[in-house]
């Protein structure tokens, strides 16, 4: 009967239970563990650089052990918020700009003002430094970021009879190019219309028309203003009116977008420098020497969006001083320069930006050129909800379930309600 197998399973189970109760922990007695949570630890373009820096730091500080915690993509915020509620936080975490507001408001991250020295502040780009502040206090230390520009496929540009040395600057010029390069199955433009990044792209368009989500003191939503409605309607009309976007846009995440561009199914795409290694990795034959980089098109004022990733120190960290030491180490001139050149991260240190190695790298230099006009999102506590509402707004218009005016008014009403609380 079950006797033979059953007995085996019972014995196995008991054995395991016994084994398990002797949880062996192998961390040396007087070492300090610093936990560093990030969704990007294992990314091929990042892994080696981080590994090396960790090793160097551990050699300089023999009693410190840096533990990398890698949640899967999209899983970090959930994990962090659950941990933080229970009073447990990682020592260091890479936090995106779309979460900083919420984290600060709940008291889940430390105020860094007492750690940051004057020289650190001087070396940091002003805009980036201010972006990491909430109510004038520093909470996020800018670690790396992406500034949005426009990628073009050189071959399609030339084949359409357009001038690769005179890339579009305004919306209308861009639309003209997109239409000319549009030749299904190749489409003129691939955007991201799904998930979080849609929020960032939409802000890039909003800013380039002089619009904004909120007013200066964060009390009123400005999405129903003409500039905002225009930004919404112009860019969704790329699909509804001009048909220059591949079908099913709301399923396009970062994966689908970069894939479409890499496999030459789209002639242009809004993206930051970090896409470069992905494109070259996906389809080296087609992508090498075939990419042109232009600015984010504008209507009224040249502007673009900068997605910044901050490093934060968890509020319940037991070793905030060492954590800060490590953060500083990751951001030394040498380390930051190396990261910029090898891993294609946008540096925020002014000395790194001006370093010869960085200036020599063509694509880095181009994206750094956009930094003048780049702005990031406001760090309000409700930012998570606002992001979701904006994504909904854009998708409703994109799929024809609402007009731009209707969707903008609805979204503004909802966001005003969120701000009122």
């Amino acid at each position, binding site marked *: *009967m*079950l006797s033979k*197998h059953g007995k085996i*399973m*019972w014995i*196995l*189970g*008991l054995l*395991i*239970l016994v*084994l*398990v*109760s002797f*949880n062996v922990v192998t961390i040396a007695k007087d070492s300090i563990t610093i*936990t560093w949570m990030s*969704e*990007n630890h*294992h*990314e*091929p*373009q*990042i892994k080696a650089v981080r590994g090396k820096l960790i090793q160097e730091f551990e050699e300089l500080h023999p009693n410190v052990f840096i*533990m*990398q*915690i*890698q*949640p*899967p*993509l999209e*899983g970090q915020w*959930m*994990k962090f918020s*659950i*941990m933080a*509620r*229970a*009073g*447990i936080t990682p020592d260091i975490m890479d936090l995106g700009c779309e979460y900083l507001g919420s984290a600060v408001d709940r008291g889940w991250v430390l105020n860094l003002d007492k750690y940051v020295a004057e020289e650190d502040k001087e070396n940091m780009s002003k805009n980036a430094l201010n972006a990491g502040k909430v109510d004038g206090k520093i909470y996020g230390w800018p670690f790396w970021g992406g500034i949005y520009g426009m990628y073009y496929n050189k071959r399609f540009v030339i084949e359409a009879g357009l001038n690769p040395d005179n890339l579009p600057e305004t919306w209308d010029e861009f639309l003209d190019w997109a239409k000319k390069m549009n030749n299904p*199955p190749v489409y003129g433009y691939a955007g991201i219309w799904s998930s979080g990044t849609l929020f960032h792209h939409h802000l890039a368009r909003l800013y380039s028309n002089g619009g904004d989500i909120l007013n200066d003191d964060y009390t009123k939503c400005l999405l129903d203003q003409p500039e905002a409605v225009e930004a919404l309607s112009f860019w969704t009309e790329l699909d509804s009116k001009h048909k220059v976007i591949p079908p099913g846009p709301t399923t396009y995440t*970062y*994966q689908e977008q970069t*894939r479409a561009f890499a*496999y030459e*199914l789209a002639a242009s795409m809004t993206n930051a420098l*970090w*896409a470069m*290694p*992905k494109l070259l*990795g*996906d*389809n*080296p034959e087609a992508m090498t020497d075939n990419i042109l980089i232009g600015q984010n098109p504008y209507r009224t004022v040249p502007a673009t969006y900068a997605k910044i990733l901050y490093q934060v120190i968890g509020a319940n960290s037991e070793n905030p001083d060492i954590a800060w030491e490590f953060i500083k180490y990751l951001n030394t001139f040498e380390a930051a320069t190396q990261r910029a050149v090898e891993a294609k991260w946008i540096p925020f240190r002014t000395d790194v930006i001006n370093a010869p190695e960085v200036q020599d790298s063509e694509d880095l230099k181009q994206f750094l050129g956009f930094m003048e006009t780049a702005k990031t999102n406001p760090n309000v506590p409700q930012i998570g909800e606002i992001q979701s509402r904006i994504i909904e707004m854009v998708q409703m218009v994109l799929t024809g379930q609402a007009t731009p005016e209707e969707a903008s008014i609805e979204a503004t009403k909802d966001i005003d309600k969120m701000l009122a609380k």
Partner: protein
Amino acid sequence: MEKSKLNLKPIFLRTFKTLLLLIFIFFAIFPVFWMFTTSIRLNRDVFSIPPLLWPSHPTLEPYFEVIKERPIGTYFLNTLIVAITTISFSAPVGALGAYGFSRFKFKGSGLILGFILATQMFPYVVIVVPYFQVLASLKLLDTYQGLIIAYTSFCLPFITWMLKGFFDAIPRELDEAAMIDGCSRIQAFIRVILPISLPGLAATIIFAFLVAWNHYVFALVLAQSPDKMLLSVGIPTLMGQFAFPWNLLMAAGFMAILPPIIMYSFLGKYLVKGLTTGAMKG
């Protein structure tokens, strides 16, 4: 039964049944087959238009790369420990409970059973918040025990409820016959009912193991350090923001179903009628 040469009906029926079965198998297996062919491609062969069914240069390289890129052995070991221990505990306890609910209808037993079922009606994402806090205060975070406790919370009710259904299908007369023959209630349970319910028992254990094997939410939140990571959380870390190696991902996914398949081939034979008819006739 006379076999008439003119009677085509059984042959027609059998062909139809086989055809239908093939369609089902095709529907069930095709995406997995697609997964497999993806796992033996080089990265640049993964996408193409039109989609290629079989890669031009099949290679096992992705499998080796996964092993290099991730400590997949650790993931396997951890998941095995948690899943097997959970099931080893939950199966006997659940079987006892299921038998109790099936045969003993005292006051409140229905309510208790309802309560057990009701514990499953909350989404994990809400449950996991207090779970984390409780385990944190008990210092059971990042431990096998903590994970096993959490996994028991959904394995045990599942096993109990499923086995109750299978036990209900066995007529009471059999228990009574055994007890009249001199068995105690417990002996009747072990010697008579359990063997008859073998197909159900096997199915339940297989499914419970699979549920535990693939569970994600508790594994994500309740374990933290790299050496306690489970498969269900470790494999998705291959999905990067800036690199998304489909072939590695599918290869890892395939490796992950190996233990379930092994377990299934062990227990699958119990899903078969033959062993039960003997006991029934007795």
